């Protein structure tokens, strides 16, 4: 069976992926590969991954998101995670996955503001 593809939208210099359905492992790995390739193809400065619709994030998906943020970071692209539900935040911390190196924002709108601020800073010549 083909794995489900998560649409990745481009707005200006930013990519936005909103995960709307429960990801099984193969589709999550496919998403990672698609996203990194799209970062390369579009030279995006930032990526927002919106998880508002997810009611379960287990250690596999949590680790994958941390990996995506680290890998995108190596390519020079920032990742902001948005929309974690309270129950998801609680279970992730109880699992032991605090994602300390992943930037987060309460919702997509705030995530966009964080991203705009960061990309403007880098346009000013700062790292």
């Amino acid at each position: 069976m083909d794995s489900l593809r998560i649409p990745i939208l481009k707005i200006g210099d930013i990519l936005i992926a909103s995960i709307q359905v429960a990801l099984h492992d193969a589709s999550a790995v496919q998403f990672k590969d698609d996203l990194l390739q799209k970062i390369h193809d579009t030279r995006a400065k930032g990526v927002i991954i919106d998880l508002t619709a997810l009611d379960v994030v287990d250690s596999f998906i949590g680790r994958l998101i941390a990996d995506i943020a680290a890998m995108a970071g190596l390519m020079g692209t920032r990742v902001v995670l948005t929309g974690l539900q309270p129950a998801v935040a609680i279970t992730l911390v109880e699992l032991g996955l605090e994602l300390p190196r992943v930037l987060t924002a309460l919702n997509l709108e705030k995530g966009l503001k964080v991203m705009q601020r960061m990309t403007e800073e880098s346009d000013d010549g700062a790292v």
Partner: protein
Amino acid sequence: MGQSKAAVIRSDLDIVIARTMARDVAKVLGFGAIDQARIATAVSELARNIFLYAGTGNVTVREIEKGTRKGIEIVCEDQGPGIPNIDLVMQDGYSTSRGMGMGLPGAKRLMDEFLIRSQENVGTTITCRKWRN
């Protein structure tokens, strides 16, 4: 009698099916949204363990009672290689596969009771329970 449901784990798709089933049962039993997420996440970790280490197995979810308390019991069984050293796999960060080594200890933290029975080359049965407040 009480709610009881079972799922066979054969692929990564079945992990999602098993945890959705557990969440649905937890919801019917009156668990709140956060406990539903804890139960579904624990089942996701345990079902993935079956898939990664044994290939196939079963997840059964049922209603339990102790006196006036009601709860949910999850039994995950496989006929896989077994766990030679249970203390080791219950340590945070220990992993022999693609996992982060937080599957079993993480699932234990999300549940109230957690019991592993395992015999090398025979299989593993993990029973865990969560009680409703």
